[in-house]
Structures are given as structure tokens and as C-alpha cells.
């Protein structure tokens, strides 16, 4: 570790010098030959800033897809290359990046950014340029109420339906096991909020009383006060609309307050794999529910190859965002191969809207507005392993746990 840090430090100095030389040597990045060079795909991702965790994972998914696609002969017989720009989790920068990718880098195709927060403004740029925009992480309903024709979400469902399978399972629990009271803390985010809204609608209809509901800003670091209020309200179930850090901080506050609701659901945070487990501790991740688009052991087309290549390139098991990035690229590639051309982007959009695409997340299909038609998997951390617990036909285990407590 020590050597690695020093090596990186020296690398940083060398890198800055090399970059200075490079910049002085070339004025601009010239696009390749329009028909014979590689197909250039542009994307902007939050490689730094608050959403960098998911952005970096998505970038890995894109890179794995490029490797496998080129090994298989490329796209339309041409190699593919991906240009990724860092938007620093900034809505203004993501717009600038996509404008640059389209107008200056002259990319042939686009892939989406990470998070609805960034994809909402980014997709407007793509729509204006009439370029297909398949995004791996854009589940907010606000993405699909604007009448856009080129935007597609490459997961199974939008945010309002993300917790649907989970909430319906809770609502159907036997009377003596069903929670009586619920708390809904949520990040002020176009994705996290609707997840919680969707779950509350189902749980309230089942007679589960809402005893706490509030939205906190992205800058919230300390959750002790929120948890203290929920503890006072004695909620049996907590459904949190969380990104990453806020999910970890929330669990830590629950532990510090000595408060353990029977059921704990967090929307995105637990899908960050080992990062999440290291953040909250394996014993505290035990029994946390989440909705997931992907499972590493899924018997889906190309998943074995994806997992093997990911492990070869980056080590370890692929996190969900990497799989989502891979699936987005798969959808785009399927459209290009079937249409047989890059030029007519409207034809690409029409093809995606009219067809199903087998991906490592399962077979995806879309409504006219670009939102997907399917259902999410419900995952749960069990003994340090992410298991699929619902729906039962896709479950990797029969056991469903309470949070840090015995099974149902």
C-alpha cells in the first residue's frame, strides 16, 4: 500500500508533465475517419464529486462492453471506442460535456450519464441533437413526461415502481408479522424521492401508518437528529430513498441510537456492493433490503462473459452500476446492428421502442416514452453476500431476514 501510494504520487507528477507536453503538441482532438475508423461513443459521467462512486462503476461497465464488443468483431465491422468526460456531479458540466461530445468531438453515438439528477439535463441536449440516448441510471419519472423521442432507460422499471415488488411483499405479510408503522426519509433527488413515494402508496393502502416522512438535502452528513425523531415515532419499517453516503450515514446513526426497526429498505446505497458493506460493517448490512437491477449469478444472456471480463479487468465482482452501464451499451449496440447504420438516429430510436433486447439484466422492453416495462429484483444482504429474495421465481435463496434479526 505504502509503495503503491508513493508510486501513484510519482505517477501524478510524471502525468502532469506528460499532459503539458501533449497539450502543447496538439491543438485539438481530431475525429477519426467517418466511415472506416472506429465508431466513437461519447458519454459524460460523474467520475468525481458526490456521485463518483456510481460514475466510476458505470465507466467500468462501459469499458468492459468495449473490450468484449471489439473482441467479437466490433460494431458493423468497425472497432468501437468510448470517450468519457467527467462532469464532477454537476448539472451544468454534464450539459457542457454532451454539447462538446456532439459538436466538437463529433461522436457517432451517445450513452447516458449516471443518476437522474444528471441525466435529466443531459438528455435534453441529446434530444435537441436528435441522438439516441440510452441511459443506465435515469429512473426518475421526470425523465419521461417531457414528450422526448430519443431517450431510453436500460433498467427494468422507473423509480416509482422500483420498490413495488418489495412493498407488495410487505403488504402481503401475515397480520402478526406485518409492520404497523413506517418512516420514509428520502434524499432530495429526482430518483430517490419517487422510490419512496411509490413504496408509501402501497404500504399506506395496506393500512401501515406513516409516522415519519421528510426529505433531506444532499449536503446532509449527520442523521442523528432524523434517526432520533424516527426512534421517538417507533417506526416498524424504514424505507429510505438513499444515494450512497447518506445510506451509510443513516445506518450508522441507527446503530448509534440503538434503534433497530424490523425492516430496513434503502433504495440505492446497498447496491454499491463491498463499498456499502465496508461502510456499515457486514454484521449491520445483514438483512438490509434493496431493489436491484442485477445479480452477479443471474442466468441472463452474456452475464458469464461480462463477469469474467470484469474480474479480469478490474478484479472482484461487478457492482450493479457496472452491469447497468454494460446493459445500456448492449441496448445501443443491438439497435445499431439491427438497423445496420449509425446515420439515422430516429430509426435507431424507433427500433428500440418496438423491440425487446436481451441483456445481462434480463430482457428489456420499453413504453412509447422510453420508460421500461419490467419489474425490479429485490435484494437483501445475507452473511456478507447480496442475495435476490424476490420475486420468488428469480430468488437465489428461500430465506428472507429481518434487519439484523431472525428470518421471517
Amino acid at each position, binding site marked *: *500500500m*505504502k509503495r503503491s*501510494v508513493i508510486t*501513484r*504520487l510519482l*505517477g*501524478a507528477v510524471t*502525468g502532469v508533465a506528460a499532459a503539458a507536453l501533449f497539450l502543447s503538441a496538439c491543438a485539438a482532438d481530431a475525429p477519426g475517419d467517418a466511415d472506416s475508423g472506429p465508431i466513437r461513443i461519447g458519454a459524460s459521467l460523474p*467520475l*468525481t*464529486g*458526490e456521485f*463518483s*462512486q456510481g*460514475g*466510476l462503476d458505470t465507466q467500468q461497465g462501459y469499458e468492459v462492453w468495449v473490450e468484449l464488443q471489439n473482441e467479437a468483431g466490433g460494431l458493423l465491422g468497425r472497432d468501437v471506442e468510448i470517450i468519457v468526460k467527467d462532469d*464532477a*456531479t454537476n448539472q451544468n458540466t454534464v450539459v457542457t460535456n454532451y454539447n462538446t461530445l456532439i459538436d466538437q468531438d463529433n461522436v457517432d453515438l451517445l450513452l447516458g450519464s449516471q443518476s437522474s439528477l444528471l441525466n435529466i439535463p443531459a438528455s435534453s441536449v441529446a434530444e435537441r441533437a436528435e441522438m439516441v440516448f440510452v441511459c443506465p441510471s435515469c429512473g426518475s419519472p421526470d425523465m419521461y413526461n417531457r414528450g422526448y423521442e430519443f431517450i431510453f432507460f436500460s433498467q427494468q422499471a422507473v423509480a416509482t415502481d422500483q420498490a413495488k415488488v418489495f412493498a407488495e411483499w410487505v403488504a402481503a405479510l401475515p397480520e402478526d408479522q406485518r409492520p404497523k408503522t413506517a418512516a420514509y*426519509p428520502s434524499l*432530495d433527488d429526482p430518483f430517490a424521492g419517487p422510490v419512496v413515494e411509490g413504496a408509501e402508496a402501497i404500504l399506506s393502502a395496506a393500512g401501515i401508518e406513516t409516522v415519519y416522512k*421528510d*426529505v*433531506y*438535502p444532499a*449536503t*446532509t*452528513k*449527520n442523521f*442523528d*437528529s*432524523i434517526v*432520533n*425523531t424516527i426512534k*421517538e415515532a417507533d417506526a416498524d419499517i424504514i424505507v429510505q430513498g438513499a444515494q*450512497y*453516503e447518506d445510506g*451509510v*450515514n443513516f445506518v*450508522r446513526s441507527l*446503530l*448509534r*441510537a*440503538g434503534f433497530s426497526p424490523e425492516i430496513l429498505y434503502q433504495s440505492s446505497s446497498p447496491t454499491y456492493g463491498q*463499498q456499502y458493506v*465496508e*461502510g456499515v*460493517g457486514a454484521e*449491520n448490512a445483514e438483512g438490509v433490503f434493496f431493489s436491484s437491477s442485477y445479480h452477479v449469478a443471474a442466468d441472463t444472456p452474456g452475464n458469464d462473459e461480462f463477469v469474467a471480463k470484469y474480474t479480469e479487468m478490474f478484479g472482484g465482482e461487478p457492482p450493479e452500476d457496472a452491469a447497468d452501464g454494460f446493459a445500456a451499451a448492449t441496448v445501443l449496440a443491438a439497435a445499431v446492428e439491427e438497423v445496420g447504420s449509425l446515420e439515422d438516429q430516429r430509426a435507431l430510436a424507433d427500433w428500440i421502442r418496438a423491440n425487446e433486447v436481451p441483456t445481462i439484466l434480463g430482457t428489456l422492453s420499453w413504453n412509447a416514452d422510453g420508460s421500461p416495462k419490467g419489474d425490479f429484483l429485490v435484494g437483501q444482504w445475507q452473511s456478507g453476500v447480496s442475495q435476490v429474495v424476490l420475486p420468488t421465481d428469480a430468488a437465489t435463496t428461500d430465506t428472507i431476514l429481518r434487519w439484523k434479526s431472525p428470518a421471517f
Partner: protein
Amino acid sequence: MIPLLQTLILGLLIGAVYALMASGLTLIFGVMRVINLAHGALAIFAAFLTYTLWSSWGWDPLLAIPLLVVVMFGIGWLLYVTVIKRVRGQHVSMTVLATFGIALVLEGVMGFIWGNTSHSVRTPYTDTSVVFGPFYAPTALLIAAGVAVVVLGVLALVLNRTWLGRAIRAASVNENGALLVGVSVATVAAATFAIGIATLAASGAMISTIYPFLPGSHYQWIARLLAIVVLGGLGSLPGAVVGALVIGVTELLATAYIGAAWPIAVPFIIIFLVLLVRPQGLLGTRLREDAVA
């Protein structure tokens, strides 16, 4: 009544952590009139160093503090000699720009070395609490508050009981006067900047055990720290402590009794009201040039 008291306990403990982080910032401004926008980034840098010591060699963050103090003091001195010294005394916008530049470079360096992913330091006391009656106090926050008391106490001793401290205070009150009585203001300024940065050793070590962090986390911290020192009075160490406690308590009270969206707005409303009545902050000193202006 119990929920209110519990919220106050938590708010005071968090305020103590804020005070620890803000002390160096206000010290540097008090002596040098430099608004150090790199303060948050340097705290996160100390947190990453803590992470490396913990993950590679199993060092407890508390044990790492003495070594980190030496390292951060050295970094502070180096930054002063290479950057701050050259912009000090110029228009305030130059120092703001220079220190913001340091923050951005540091963010890039941290991203390169440790990656732009979230990191956590989990100690046996990270998730535990001390329970007394119906109340609880998170152990990590209690320890952090204890460290804050020790660090602030040492700072107060140095400022009030040592020659260096008297020189720092003299330079702070009247730089030309200090020069006249033989104080090497340049050396005092370098030492002050380095001491201010060294206080971040304890801050970084402590926040690494309480919150996950990544290179970009410094933006949230610097915004909060600037609010604290402005409320307390720029340059006033006791003011920073009072300001930090006020912000810590109001953040949590606002969350509990107004709504989770309000912990940023309410403290700023209080700052606005305080500055209307006392433009120099709660415990700040009104300078002669302020009066003229």
C-alpha cells in the same frame, strides 16, 4: 422534553467537532488575514492519511494523531513558503483564489492516490454509544469532542502562555507594532499557518471515524466552516468555538423541529440576524478600519 435534550446533546457534540475544524481557519485569518479555502480539502487529506494508516497498518485514528500533526504541520509550512507567502498582503481575492487553487489541486491528488470513491474508517467505537438514562451519546462523537477540548486547550495555552503565542497575538492585533518590538512577523505567520493546518490532523482523524468521505467532500466542509468563523467573528478562537456550537445545535434542532430540508437554511438565517446586529460576529473585534469603512 427528552427528545429536545437528546437533540441538544447531539448538537453540542457535533458542534465540538465543528469547533475543532474551524479553530485553524480562524487562527490563520486572525494573524494573516488569509481566508484559507483549502482548509476543508486539507482536513479530508488528513482523513485519507488516517485511512491509509488504519487500513495498511491497523493504526487506530487516535494513535495516528501525533504523527499526522507532524505531517500536517510540515505540509502547512511548505504551503506557506511556496504559495501563501507570495500572495499574503495582497488583495483578499488573491488569497482566496490561491487557496481555492490549492484545494482543487489537493482534490485531484487525493483522487489520483486514493480514487474518487467513498472511504470509511470503522473502529470499535464508530457505531457505539454511551447510554445514560434515557439519553445516548455516540462514542465517536464523544471522543471527537474530547479531542477538540484537548486541542483547543493546547491552542489556548500556546496563545496565552508562550512567547510564540504572544507573538502571534501581537501580529494579529497590530503587525507593524509587532515588527517594532522585534517580532519576526514572517516567521510568526509561517508558524501560525502551519499550526492552523496541524490542527486538521485531529479533525481529519476524527471525521474519518464518523462520516464516509471522498476527495470532493471538502466543498461541504469549507462552506460550513466559513459560516462558523463568520458567525463567531473572523479571527476569534473563542468565537469559532461558540459559532461552531451554535451551528451544531441549530442544525439538529432545525432538522428535528422544522424539517430535514432546513439544517442549512436555519443556521444561515441566524448568521444573517447576528451580523445585522453585530457585523463583527459574536466575539469578533471591530477593527479601526472597519469603523472607518
